[in-house]
């Protein structure tokens, strides 16, 4: 029997604000434990929350970018449960009046994992619909040391946006593509850095399977707290197989909350007690209703940048790039910006794009979002090639050095003595020497084996440590060999 999976995602995104959601404490990853706290985010008696306007604006902006409907009135609710890393033992969240409802994320081929980009599903341009987007506060972090535990409340109160998708996703690859496309838009809007290593994007997935054609959905399981896009794919792959396996053996899926063990590559049930709650949501009486119309929506609108699809089209039209080139550059707004700055000073825009796509991206580490060198380096490089001062192979070497040594290509060329020898006088002398030193090749050439010229050329290149301009050398040798009669 063939099965299909039905997948829905809940994504928690840490918003890029200076301060926490309800107090003035700065948000700083890696600060000394409990050094970024105050009576409000510690839940001390009497302390009250004051909402951070910027966090509300960023959430509305996200909704606008994803085509959600913005609620005219948003409200904060208390979600009640006891947990040591939650200072008030209730979390301020949004229950029945989220800031944004609906919307969608558009999948595109490059968003899929590399090994699946050629699959038909990667070409489908499917839209994954959203249920809602709401704003809530993060909790602290527990640490366990042998016979005691400690809690760091620096993260407590950090603004989190929860984005809930419809169960529109049908495969682990689509889940991967959804997260990649979503992350791209969030980075575009400068809403979040989505740095998964820092926990800025965390994901819960709901998954069930059913035989294809069957109407009734299967029992779903939830995998909590996945902290990388590839872990989501792996966990889903495993979990779908696990569920199918149970069904094939005639078993029943029990509704469970699972965690993913990345090392073991397996999902495990969590103690059900931990999540079997009646959260007793009720409106937080400390916080007023948020009226979004007017200032908040206007501010959010002002922040909306050119979105990925628009950027792709513009890049390919304006710079004459292929769809693939435009797509790669547009995958990261900073990379696209960088390209545009570099291209502005270069006669050969396509060559700049190629250096970035084929050479730079291979060198730069994946997690690096900010490009550590000025864009002028790439325009300089492509101009050097165009002027015949560097050949392609040298240029590719220079890209590596530019990134690792953070030096301009001109400086690298000078320091390494890499400049091409284009002086006719110098080359003429070396070519003459080469002909004298390779009588056999000369004889071969003259007898009609024209390929023998390469051996002579090789002598020149060796003699000049590869710096001779190959085109000029070729022309000179041909001329000299013909002169010999």
């Amino acid at each position: 029997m063939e099965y299909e999976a039905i997948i829905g995602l809940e994504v928690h995104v840490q918003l890029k604000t200076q301060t926490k959601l309800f107090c003035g404490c700065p948000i700083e990853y890696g600060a000394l434990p409990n050094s970024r706290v105050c009576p409000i985010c510690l839940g001390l008696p009497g302390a009250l929350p004051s909402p951070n306007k910027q966090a509300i604006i960023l959430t509305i902006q996200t909704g606008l970018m994803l085509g959600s409907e913005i609620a005219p009135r948003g409200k904060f609710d208390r979600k009640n449960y006891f947990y040591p890393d939650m200072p008030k033992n209730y979390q301020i969240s949004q229950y029945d009046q989220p800031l944004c409802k609906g919307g969608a994320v558009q999948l595109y081929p490059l968003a899929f994992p590399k090994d699946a980009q050629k699959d038909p599903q990667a070409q489908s341009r499917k839209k994954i619909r959203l249920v809602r987007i709401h704003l809530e506060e993060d909790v602290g972090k527990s640490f366990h040391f042998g016979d005691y535990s400690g809690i760091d409340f620096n993260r407590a109160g950090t603004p989190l946006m929860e984005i809930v998708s419809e169960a529109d996703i049908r495969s682990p690859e689509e889940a991967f593509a959804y997260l990649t496309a979503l992350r791209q838009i969030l980075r575009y809007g400068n809403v979040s850095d989505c740095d998964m290593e820092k926990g800025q994007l965390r994901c819960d997935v709901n998954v069930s399977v059913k035989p294809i054609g069957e109407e009734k959905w299967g029992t779903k399981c939830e995998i909590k707290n996945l902290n990388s896009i590839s872990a989501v794919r792996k966990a889903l792959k495993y979990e779908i197989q696990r569920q199918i396996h149970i069904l094939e053996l005639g078993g029943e899926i029990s509704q469970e909350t699972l965690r993913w063990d990345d090392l073991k590559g397996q999902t495990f049930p969590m103690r059900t007690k931990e999540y079997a709650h009646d959260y007793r949501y009720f409106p937080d009486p400390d916080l007023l209703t948020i009226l979004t119309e007017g200032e908040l929506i206007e501010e959010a609108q002002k922040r909306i940048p050119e979105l990925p699809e628009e950027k792709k089209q513009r890049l390919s039209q304006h710079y004459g790039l292929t769809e693939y080139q435009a797509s790669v550059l547009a995958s990261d707004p900073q990379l696209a910006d960088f390209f545009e700055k570099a291209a502005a000073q270069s006669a050969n825009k396509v060559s700049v794009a190629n250096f970035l796509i084929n050479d730079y991206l291979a060198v730069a580490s994946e997690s690096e979002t900010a490009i550590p060198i000025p864009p002028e380096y790439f325009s300089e490089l492509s101009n050097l090639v165009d002027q015949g001062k560097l050949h392609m192979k040298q240029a590719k070497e220079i890209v590596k050095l530019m990134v690792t040594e953070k030096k301009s290509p001109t400086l690298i060329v000078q320091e390494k003595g890499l400049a091409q020898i284009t002086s006719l006088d110098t080359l003429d002398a070396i070519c003459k020497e080469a002909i004298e030193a390779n009588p056999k090749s000369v004889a071969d050439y003259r007898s009609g084996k024209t390929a023998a010229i390469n051996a002579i050329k090789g002598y020149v290149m060796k003699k000049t440590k590869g710096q001779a301009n190959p085109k000029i050398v070729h022309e000179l040798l041909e001329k000299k060999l013909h002169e010999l009669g």
Partner: protein
Amino acid sequence: MNLFEYTISELRRLLVRKELSPTELTEALFSRIAEVEPKINAYNYINHERAIERAKTVNVDLPLGGIPIAIKDNINVRAEPCRCASKILEGYLSPYNATVIEKLIKAGAILVGRTNMDEFAMGSSTENSATGLTKNPWDLQRVPGGSSGGSAAAVASHEAFCALGSDTGGSIRQPASFCGCVGLKPTYGRVSRYGLTAFASSLDQIGPLTKTVEDAALLLEVISGFDPNDNTSEKMPVPRFSELLETLSLKNMVLGVPKEYFIEGIDGEVREAINKAIAHFESLGAKIEEVSLPHTPYAVATYYILATAEASANLARFDGIRYGRRSKHYEDLLDYYGKTRDEGFGSEVKRRILLGTYVLSSGYYDAYYLRALKVKEKIKQDFSSVFKKCQALLTPTSPFCAFRIGEKSNDPLQMYLADIFTIAVNLAGICGLSIPCGQSTEGLPIGLQIIGPAWKEEVILALGHLYQKSTGWKPPIPPLEKT
């Protein structure tokens, strides 16, 4: 006349003219405290040294320059305990000042100590306190009311010139009425709640307890105003309440008497005293009109659903993880929570947490919490429609005078009825003032409640002031004896 008998306004005159120094004044108060406190037990904590240090340097030209003040034990003062009269906050020292405390300090007030209360402001007698009972200065066998019983008893027995209390369902006005002093519950949003340990966030409001209405106006002026740290505080201008006291004319003024507040079961002497006070206003030229607030009978039930629901979440933070008293013997985390809270909370607090947890539970939320919110709106509408016809309402503050210690402590429902006339004011978010208006034959004070529309404190204060001026009110010295 002893120095401790003075009102704030009288003391201000002496201080500004340098006829009295803040240090002399503070010392005089401390000797009164030393004399009276063993009988009353109004304070949970006294900081003599800190008060005297402050008195030496305070600027008397400030609005409350040199005036000592007592603070209810649920309002945070930096480096002081804020126990809320609970075992669970044993040993807790607050690291920050409530907004009202910042305002008082800026206005030159001298903080004397913390007054006793019902644990987490839950109660009407100050019997639910982990730090012991407070006695009513008019009869030491009786309760001072609550939950701000310590503040009311301290002011009435002249061991405080003035005090701050908090009022969620009558916790300022009812003890003021029981002890024979003045108590004001401001409009919701008038005074910042930042730093007030929350009982029911949508109803709590800090307010003054004083010897005269004039003093209440002075104090309200200082503590009022929008606070960016309290999302529910309002950006309303703060009138100069103390300067508006004399501007009121009773001509064309209609005072409403809600018939639902004169029910069966109201004490005969209380009824008589209130009728006399109403007649007094009439004799001064006010038009008296009977009005109806039809949803009054639902106020107590509505209150106990909404207040306990909010309290169940507000008090969840007391878990022994970050601060406060912790249980020493436990098996696992859940057991730790259970034991810490079981050992730390008193029975009334537990009862209300359970009730609040219940009404918010899935399956009950709509029937209780949501319905209570709707009734709250009805109660609010009741008041807005009567305030179209009249400028203020006159009612008893409490249906009875101070009751005996232990008389109602085993009967929560009877105890809840002590706030039957004050609760609706909190639900409607409007303002209410309690002033003394006579005594029972047993010598117990009776309180008149003057209820005003939202943001009209100046009207109820002026009415109260007029009453006190025209009846020649002098803050009496209670006997401090068992009768």
